[in-house]
């Protein structure tokens, strides 16, 4: 029983960064902007989180530093694609390249140092309930934040007027502009929100998942988060489901490696990436589902005519 609980807890820990990064990117894409720089913003979050926590000795400060760095980094993307109308795909790629380089440079002196870990929640009586106690009341604080985030985003996008406006911008920026909506301003806010989420996801990696800093420690999670948004056909609750499936694959292959099953570890390590491809193929075969939900002006630059 204890093993099952432990496995479920590690799956949640593996799924949380994917979930947070993907839910942030979902909001960005719903506003019609394709930010391929998730990996770069996320890796900036890992170094921001680890660095600030190490220097101050306080993981909470690290958490905020990670969020801030991710948001700041996304601002760079926003200025380029929104104010200067550059190609979003190429700009996102350069954000990733720059992020991997900058974080590697900033982190040279942090490699191999012991990190600070965010403590798990502990509520005296509740957490001690067998089995469900730890699952419900004994996880790390960011896990709870991620669940709140999904519900909040789902509510915001589909139950508020501002959310409706945001989605309308994603579907047709010209019509939204003609109605007097400040397209660029909304998109700036969406991109920065996405950056903050990616930064938080990165900070989770270096403050909870493995409290240390290694170069490129995101290991493609930013890209998997991007794939999750497509897989979820831009629906927040489906992102939640998708993130947990991928968390299970990620943990499953780690456990398989630990049990020493007679398959080369490299094959097991490649499973999350192969699973991403399979899932993308399955979802894109369903044309109706993807066509209906894809924000129609996704990735197209917008220059308001005045």
């Amino acid at each position, binding site marked *: 029983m204890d093993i099952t609980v432990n496995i479920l807890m590690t799956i949640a820990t593996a799924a949380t960064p994917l979930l947070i990064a993907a839910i942030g990117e979902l909001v960005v894409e719903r506003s019609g902007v394709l930010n391929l720089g998730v990996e770069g913003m996320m890796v900036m979050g890992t170094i921001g989180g680890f660095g600030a926590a190490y220097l101050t000795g306080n993981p909470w400060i690290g958490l905020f530093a990670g969020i801030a760095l991710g948001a700041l980094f996304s601002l*760079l993307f926003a200025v380029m694609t929104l104010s200067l109308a550059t190609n979003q795909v190429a700009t996102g790629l350069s954000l990733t390249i720059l992020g991997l380089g900058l974080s*590697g*440079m900033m982190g040279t002196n942090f490699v191999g140092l012991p990190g600070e870990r965010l403590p798990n929640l502990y509520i005296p009586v509740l957490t001690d309930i067998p089995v469900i106690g730890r699952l419900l009341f004994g996880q790390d604080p960011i896990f709870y934040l991620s669940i709140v985030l999904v519900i909040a985003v789902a509510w915001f996008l589909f139950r508020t007027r501002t959310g409706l406006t945001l989605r309308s911008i994603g579907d047709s920026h010209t019509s939204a502009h003609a109605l007097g909506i400040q397209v660029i301003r909304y998109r700036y806010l969406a991109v920065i929100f996405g950056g903050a989420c990616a930064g938080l996801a990165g900070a989770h990696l270096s403050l909870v998942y493995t409290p240390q800093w290694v170069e490129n420690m995101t290991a493609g999670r930013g890209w998997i988060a991007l794939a999750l948004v497509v897989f979820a056909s831009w629906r927040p609750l489906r992102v939640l489901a998708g993130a947990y499936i991928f968390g299970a694959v990620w943990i499953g292959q780690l456990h398989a490696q630990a049990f020493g099953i007679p398959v080369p570890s490299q094959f097991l390590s490649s499973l999350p990436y192969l699973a991403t*491809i399979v899932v*993308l193929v399955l979802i894109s075969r369903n044309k109706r589902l993807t066509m209906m939900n894809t924000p129609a002006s996704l990735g197209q630059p917008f220059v308001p005519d005045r």
Partner: protein
Amino acid sequence: MRLELVKRPQRSMLFSMLSPFIAFALTIIAGAIMFAFLGVNPATALFTYFISPITEVWQIHELAIKAAPLILIAVGLSICYRANIWNIGAEGQFVFGAIIGSIVPVLYPELQGPFVLPMMLLMGMVGGALYAGIPAFLKARFGTNEILTSLMLVYVAQLFLDWMVRGPWRDPKGFNFPQTVQFNSSAVLPELMPMSGRANLGFVFALIAAVLVWFMMSRMLKGFEVRVLGSSPRAGRFAGFSLNRMVFFAFMLSGALAGLAGISEVSGAIGQLQPSISPGYGFTAIIVAFLGRLNPLGIVAAGLVLGLTYLGGEAAQSVLGISDKVARVFQGMLLFFVLGCDTLIHYRIRLVGLGASKPQVAAKLEEAR
């Protein structure tokens, strides 16, 4: 205050020529600021980074070695990007091409003769093309997003290489190091001028590929097809061009070139397979493609510039004691500035004060009357 873009009636030829140079100048300035932050004298640092790596003849050879794979890959990618097809998995095609190309020298190390090398190069190209064919097939058949699939395949290829050199292909006499046998002399790419440096035939391949692709893109129907489908798929359809066929063509051609770059790197600069055979050439080539304006001849120049950033990174590490990750930072900044400057080709940029907007509205209303 805010930025306002005003569409130019025509694309500006002036900025079309100037923008890579402006971008490079801005990168130098930003780099100087970064070095100052790191506590190094910017002038010394920039000299170490950009000038000192190319002051001697053997260093020019090293530059050619770094630039060759970048140019080969970027020339292929430029076809994809012109066709609005986003192959960003060239790193994986590079690795897979290197593995397939190495089959002969690893499994038949005693095989000698003039046919060995051409066979390896051909197999490398086929390997890269087939690996690029996977995302192409998935896009053409199921409409799967090629950006994500081609990128995921990079991780898969790297893990596959890691397994090969640690497992089935490990050199039994290699003291358990994760590497294959050293290629024999007829499986090694010849050096161009062995007297003065290490530069090998790979650089010649890069130049030939650049000229051939330039010819195709500017003088052949196929190049026209690429450009039409890229700028307007609908118009392309009416002209009888097939987008699905173009997806295969662009992916597999760029994959073949990346595979050629991979096997050239392994048989030239390295001489055997190792767990890691590329310092991110496949990703840096994306920057090369854009810096070269997606024009094969521009890409040759851009490849030399980006090759220099690798050498500069090594120099910065050994002379200044800065992490060689500084190379990646320079590369990222360069792409940012290139993309930003490209805006100037199509738009005029105006800074508008917030207070100024009201009189402007009044003036517009006046005009309308």
